């Protein structure tokens, strides 16, 4: 147990305490008690910056289940620290914001419990060195996110969104678990750092490609990549602080973290580079295109988040090319990692700020619909300023930080087409084209976001509330973030040495040359494409009303949501049909299935395993035995063909008596005696039963019904015969009966061996056989007695006791 362990567990511990504090302390907003936790953690993690800057990492181990290799080991390097600082830093601001956003009428105890649970889980994900522990925390983030999305659980849309995100992310989580287990099998260790050391084993293993695909599915679902982004727009039903924290700054970046963390293992594969880059770029383009047609402010931001995540994912993919080069060539592609890490920070700042402003606008006006909003410029000036800063940063306009990372992004996308590897220099030409297209639409929606909310005409009649500037408490957090946006834009060197370089080194496993971000590089290809983006973007904004109709006319069948809903409604029907097809409720059908599977299993076993039929060791046939054989088969077949029930009963008892005669022939007097008596009693019982039943006719059975029965029964008979023949001929040991034969008199002082076995050698069988008889007797008695009681009730409604008298 170390301070680092305590840091991860601190939010989880407080998640338990906070609901109790909430119960006791109702006068002060409970958020104030929560606020110190992320702040303290933030400061604590900042203190690690010197450690990671010097290229060192911290490994703290705590034994949990050492036999399974499951130890709660924490590993902190540049990458883990970057995420920890993001989680705690943005977390502090979110808690501060939520204090003014959520009123005290809400169930705040639940809210902060879930939020702290999430924070702890997220810290666990980014700091765990053990893959199984990582998976546990991963699922805890899905789970707490589910709880937070459905926070307003009386709204059906919240429940729908929560269920959707749960299904998608848990699907990905399970796939990730599969991938991690394959990695453990291939690498022989549960520790990520050990796995990286055994990288040669893993790459030689047949599991390599499967592990890669499964891990990628896990990362893609969590980070809302194409086509798994469906859950994120619906998760916007959560309270705005949750959307800002989980669905823009932290949880959706868990997938990015995983991709970055696993890069040293998988980067050598061509499939990894192409998949990560390709999916990232498709997501970037598709989501930025869709963001332009959203009506809801949070909808725009949701798609924008998806598209920015795609952009970072694409950079992580391109960066993997650096693993195939050495020296300065390698540095060219490591620049993509630098850009990815920088954009990760930038996105967290400007997107969280935008979400917070959206929440403030929603609070002030009562709507988030962009068609109703407009002209809030003079009414909400501070919000307007923050929106301008963060939106323009998102669009990639100087002097904000988004511009710097976007320049680096375009630069690396163009650079990669020169790589003489994996046909990157032929098909790879598509990479910068898609990236530029995506950036154009990013520019369009980012600029329109400002225009639609704050500029244009003011429509007071459409707004549910009278708009006003948000309270200062609500604005502290977005103002802080906006200041960061400008600071990082103007002075990127604050970050580059302290955080970005260690994180990049952790991803690339190489010492990176110092990163420098410049506002202007000269007229490079990247700069020219940025200009192109601005020009086309402006043209598109001016002609917006013309082409947006075209985009909106996209048929619903072409959306992924449509297929998700379709899948959700079709699969239960299919399983219902499958179940109904064999669960018919008819006993006979079940019996036919049971007998047929018996036959099939036996036949398959006989085919697969060799067997022999050895019939030498048999006794001779005596003629009077054959007579009984003929008799018993005749009697049995008479039962089948009998039309009257009485006749079939008599034939059945004839079979029983024949069996008794067999027992006489085979030297079993006790059996014969018992069989005679039992058969007589059974027959009497059958007859008694019929005496009380009306004379029913046989049920009509159709011809196919009969033929199926004949086939099944002949099959069962044949199986029994074949098995009997095989079993009889293959006897390996002699019977233990000789022991009883020798010792029946000297040990048990009896002469009748069967009786001595029943009551002396194997007396327990007899005890329980008597119990069975007793239970059956009780059962028969109860059934008859219960019937009379019910009848008595039916007749006069009397109580049981009265009729008993």
């Amino acid at each position, binding site marked *: 147990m170390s301070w680092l362990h305590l840091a991860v567990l601190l939010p989880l511990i407080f998640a338990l305490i906070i609901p109790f504090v909430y119960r006791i302390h109702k006068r002060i907003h409970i958020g104030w008690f929560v606020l110190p936790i992320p702040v303290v953690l933030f400061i604590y993690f900042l203190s690690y910056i010197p450690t990671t800057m010097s290229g060192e990492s911290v490994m703290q181990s705590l034994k949990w289940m050492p036999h399974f290799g499951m130890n709660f080991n924490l590993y902190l390097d540049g990458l883990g620290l970057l995420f920890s600082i993001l989680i705690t830093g943005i977390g502090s601001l979110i808690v501060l914001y939520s204090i003014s956003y959520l009123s005290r009428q809400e169930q705040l105890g639940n809210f902060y419990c879930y939020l702290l649970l999430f924070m702890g889980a997220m810290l666990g994900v980014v700091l765990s060195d053990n893959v199984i522990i990582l998976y546990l925390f991963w699922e805890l983030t899905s789970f707490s996110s589910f709880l937070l999305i459905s926070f307003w659980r009386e709204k059906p849309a919240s429940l729908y969104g929560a269920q959707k995100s749960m299904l998608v992310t848990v699907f990905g989580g399970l796939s990730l678990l599969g991938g991690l287990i394959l990695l453990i099998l291939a690498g022989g260790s549960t520790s990520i750092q050990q796995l990286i050391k055994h990288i040669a084993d893993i790459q030689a293993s047949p599991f390599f490609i499967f592990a890669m695909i499964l891990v990628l599915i896990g990362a893609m679902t969590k980070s809302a990549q194409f086509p798994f982004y469906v859950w994120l727009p619906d998760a916007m039903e959560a309270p705005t602080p949750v959307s800002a924290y989980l669905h823009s700054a932290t949880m959706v970046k868990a997938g990015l973290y995983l991709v970055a963390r696993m890069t040293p293992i998988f980067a050598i594969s061509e499939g990894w580079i192409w998949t990560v880059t390709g999916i990232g770029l498709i997501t970037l383009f598709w989501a930025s295109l869709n963001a332009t047609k959203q009506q809801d402010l949070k909808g725009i931001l949701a798609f924008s988040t998806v598209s920015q995540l795609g952009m970072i994912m694409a950079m992580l993919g391109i960066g993997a090319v650096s693993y195939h080069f050495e020296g300065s060539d390698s540095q060219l592609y490591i620049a993509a990692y630098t850009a990815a890490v920088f954009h990760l920070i930038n996105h967290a700042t400007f997107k969280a700020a935008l979400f917070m402003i959206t929440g403030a606008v929603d609070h002030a006006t009562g709507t988030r619909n962009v068609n109703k909003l407009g002209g809030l410029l003079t009414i909400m000036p501070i919000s307007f300023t923050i929106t301008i800063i963060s939106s323009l940063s998102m669009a990639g306009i100087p002097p904000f930080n988004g511009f710097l990372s976007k320049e680096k992004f375009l630069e690396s996308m163009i650079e990669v087409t020169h790589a003489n590897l994996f046909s990157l220099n032929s098909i790879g030409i598509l990479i910068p084209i898609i990236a530029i297209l995506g950036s154009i639409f990013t520019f369009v929606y980012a600029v329109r976001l400002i225009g639609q909310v704050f500029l244009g005409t003011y429509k007071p009649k459409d707004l549910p509330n009278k708009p006003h500037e948000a309270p200062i408490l609500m604005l502290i957090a977005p103002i802080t973030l906006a200041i960061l946006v400008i600071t990082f834009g103007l002075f990127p060197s604050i970050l580059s040495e302290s955080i970005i370089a260690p994180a990049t080194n952790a991803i690339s496993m190489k010492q990176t040359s110092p990163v420098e971000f410049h506002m202007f590089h000269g007229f490079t290809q990247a700069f020219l494409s940025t200009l192109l983006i601005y020009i086309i973007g402006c043209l598109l904004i001016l002609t917006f009303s013309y082409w947006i109709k075209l985009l909106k006319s996209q048929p619903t069948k072409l959306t992924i949501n449509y297929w998700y809903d379709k899948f959700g409604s079709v699969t239960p029907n299919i399983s219902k049909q499958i179940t109904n097809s064999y669960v018919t409720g*008819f006993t*006979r059908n079940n*019996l036919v299935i049971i*007998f047929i599977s018996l036959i099939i299993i036996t036949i398959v076993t006989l085919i697969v395993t060799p067997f022999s039929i050895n019939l030498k060791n048999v*006794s*001779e*046939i*005596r003629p009077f035995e*054959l007579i009984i*054989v003929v008799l*018993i*088969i005749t009697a*049995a*077949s008479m*039962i*089948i063909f009998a039309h009257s029930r009485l006749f079939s009963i008599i034939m059945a008892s004839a*079979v*029983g008596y024949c*069996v008794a005669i*067999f*027992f006489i022939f085979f*030297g*079993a*007097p006790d*059996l014969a005696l*018992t*069989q005679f008596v039992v058969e007589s*009693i*059974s027959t009497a*019982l059958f007859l008694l*039963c019929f005496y009380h039943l009306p004379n029913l006719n046989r*049920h009509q*059975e159709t011809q196919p019904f009969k033929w199926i*029965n004949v086939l*099944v*029964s002949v099959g069962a*008979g*044949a199986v*029994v*015969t074949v098995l*009997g*023949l095989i079993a*009889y001929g293959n006897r390996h040991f002699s*019977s233990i*009966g000789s022991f009883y034969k020798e010792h*029946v*008199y000297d040990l048990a002082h009896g*002469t*009748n*061996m*069967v009786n001595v076995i*029943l009551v002396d050698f194997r007396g327990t069988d*007899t005890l329980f*056989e008597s119990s*069975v*008889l007793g239970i*059956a007797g009780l059962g*028969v008695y109860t*059934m008859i007695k219960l*019937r009379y009681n019910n009848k008595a009730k039916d007749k006069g409604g009397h109580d049981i006791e009265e009729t008993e008298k």
Partner: protein
Amino acid sequence: MEIVMIFVCGILTAMSVYLILSKSLIRIIIGTTLQTHTANLFLITMGGLKKGEVPIYEKGISSYVDPIPQALILTAIVISFSVTAFFLVLAFRSYKELGTDNVESMKGVIEDDRE
């Protein structure tokens, strides 16, 4: 003789399965009793039908029939008798309650179990 008995058991099994698959409850019960007879015969056959003395100890005799299968069958007879008796009463009761002995019509939700 054992081979003959094994074939007899196979034929009886086929017949009892056929009876069990039919619609009438009584035929099903008869099928199950037939099945127990088959099982008992099978047990004694598999024990070997070598000729020997009845397993009652007498001085000077060394060759007896194997007593173990007989003890097992004796147990089986009593148990199957108990079960058959129980089944019969059950069939009788269900006929009284449901008004049919057709297994195919014994299906569906019981809305009023006193009908």
